[in-house]
């Protein structure tokens, strides 16, 4: 087991070096499941996926399967999807509406809020009775939502969601709290399997604007807009961060991600002057809420002939092993936008992201390749280079938002901050 001292030698963000071993070692992976995924606030669903009492979706927290349900009182419950008797899953479908869940093994039945309400042939099977009140589905002790994003944590002692998100809330508002209707999901998430480590996804989305010019150069060859370091990179506490990309010199982008002018008064009502100042000129925003929730908000045209549009995607890098993830990808759209705008946004997402997305294809190819190339002992004993901007680029002194902001989107400060947080959680007592 890699000891605390070992991890501090392996992961040295202050030197811009992160060991390749932590992206594939099975013991470190198990430690991550315990120290990160069992403690942090993890994203589980969007409010628009379970709008009515009785609605549920089945999700995963790390490798633990959960059912996310809405009770009669509108409260959201996150229940471990395994019978308290002997472990069979009590819900085997992706989504639906149900007042209760019945285990197919022995028939123990639970209310959709978790209470054990039925045990078949109770008196005959358990003449001495059962402490029914203590045999409900295990429930995540902490469940909360921020602007439609539902999170849960297994850690009773953890800080509030608001404190966990910290300064990142200010940035999430730019996307999920800027109109009266807000965002809603288009539908259930796409899911697909990639042979890679979850930190390659989180690390890419938190701060890698630099890869766009090479990995996604096809876009420019087809007449897309060029990329440049114009923009900012910002990280907040707790390992979160995002990149804010501006149009390259000589190019323009429509203000506010092309949201129609009639919606601008809503933006001005929902966001502060500082937030509007940051939002208005953006061409792209990408980020990660530690540990494994990322987002992307690009703007542009779907094809040479199409109208300008933008889309917002949430994704989770669900860990399935040290070298395996399931990517879950959602498309969200502004609820109140005209249908034509919504459809253009959805099609732009499908063209570029998701399992068949022309942009996303090249990212998963990269991460699977990295994982394949770094299986052997020599590769694993070496380090990844996270030194961009280290010691040479100073944070901005007059930035309108929270966190630490840098005057370029080509820098690896966010990745370094993410690994600092990783190290903190992995070496905590």
């Amino acid at each position, binding site marked *: 087991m890699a000891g605390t001292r070992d991890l501090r030698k392996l992961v040295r963000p202050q030197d811009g070096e992160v060991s390749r071993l932590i992206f594939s070692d099975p013991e470190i992976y198990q430690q991550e499941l315990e120290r990160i995924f069992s403690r942090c606030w993890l994203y589980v669903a969007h409010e628009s996926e379970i709008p009515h009492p009785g609605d549920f979706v089945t999700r995963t927290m790390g490798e633990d399967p959960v059912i996310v349900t809405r009770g009669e009182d509108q409260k959201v419950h996150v229940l471990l999807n395994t019978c308290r008797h002997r472990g069979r899953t009590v819900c085997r479908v*992706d989504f639906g509406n149900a007042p209760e869940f019945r285990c197919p093994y022995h028939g123990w039945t639970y209310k959709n809020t978790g209470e054990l309400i039925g045990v078949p042939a109770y008196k005959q099977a358990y003449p001495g009775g059962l402490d029914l009140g203590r045999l409900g589905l295990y429930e995540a002790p902490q469940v909360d939502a921020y602007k439609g994003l539902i999170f849960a944590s297994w850690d009773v002692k953890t800080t509030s969601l608001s404190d966990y998100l910290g300064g990142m809330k200010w940035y999430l508002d730019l996307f999920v709290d800027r109109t009266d209707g807000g965002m809603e999901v288009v539908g259930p998430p*796409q899911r*697909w399997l990639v042979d890679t480590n979850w930190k390659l996804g989180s690390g890419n989305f938190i701060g890698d604007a630099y890869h766009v010019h090479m990995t996604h150069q096809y876009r420019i060859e087809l007449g897309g807009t060029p990329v440049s370091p114009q923009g900012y990179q910002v990280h907040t506490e707790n390992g979160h961060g995002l990149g804010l990309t501006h149009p390259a010199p000589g190019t323009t982008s429509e203000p506010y991600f092309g949201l129609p002018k009639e919606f601008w008064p809503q933006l001005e009502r929902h966001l502060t002057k500082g937030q509007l100042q940051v939002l208005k000129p953006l061409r792209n925003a990408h980020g990660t809420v530690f540990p494994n929730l990322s987002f992307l908000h690009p703007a542009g045209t779907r094809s040479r002939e199409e109208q300008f549009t933008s889309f917002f995607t949430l994704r989770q890098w669900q860990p399935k092993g040290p070298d395996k993830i399931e990517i879950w990808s959602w498309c969200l759209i502004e609820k109140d936008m005209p249908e034509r705008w919504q459809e253009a946004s959805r099609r732009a997402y499908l063209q570029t992201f998701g399992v*068949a997305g*022309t942009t996303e294809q090249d990212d998963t190819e990269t991460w699977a390749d990295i994982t394949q190339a770094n299986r052997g002992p020599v590769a694993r004993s070496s380090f990844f280079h996270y030194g961009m901007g280290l010691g040479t680029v100073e944070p901005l002194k007059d930035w309108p938002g929270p966190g630490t902001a840098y005057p370029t989107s080509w820098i690896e400060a966010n990745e370094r901050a993410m690994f600092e947080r990783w190290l903190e959680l992995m070496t905590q007592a």
Partner: protein
Amino acid sequence: MEEAKTIGLNDPPYSEIVDFLYKEAELMDEGRLSDWLELMTEDLLYRMPMRVNRGRGEQPDYSHETEIFCDDLPSLRLRIDRLSTGYAWAEDPPSRTRHVVSNVRVTATSNPDEFDVRSYILVYRNRGNSPEGDLFSGKRQDLLRNVNGHWRLAKRTILLDQAVIGSRNLSIFF
């Protein structure tokens, strides 16, 4: 009623349509995607809804809202054009594919030049030096149109037989 309109195996244009599907598969497997695109109509709709897990009897078992892709002719052309930019890393080196088309059933429509065509597909995809490949199984629902004596694809809806897709991407065509 539907059975009365199903075209028999020995009746025109069944064998012509099967030949069209085989030719189309060959073009895809040989990487001749510009030629493949020539087989589409201007009003093409080419889409793949996403499969979901629901209880037995709960219909449909695909999502009405979430698709894997939804292309018209211009956006499909973009997907193909991207492959010759020299920067399509997911297909460089290219995948080796084999499209096996089977269980073809042809039904007439109210338009004498258009036919509903259903087919099953097994598509094997292998990349690089991996001895293991992906095997995609699925069903296609097509609308084929006879344009001046040539068969053209006007509409295709593909349903793959996976809810969680077991491959790093779907960079190939179906």
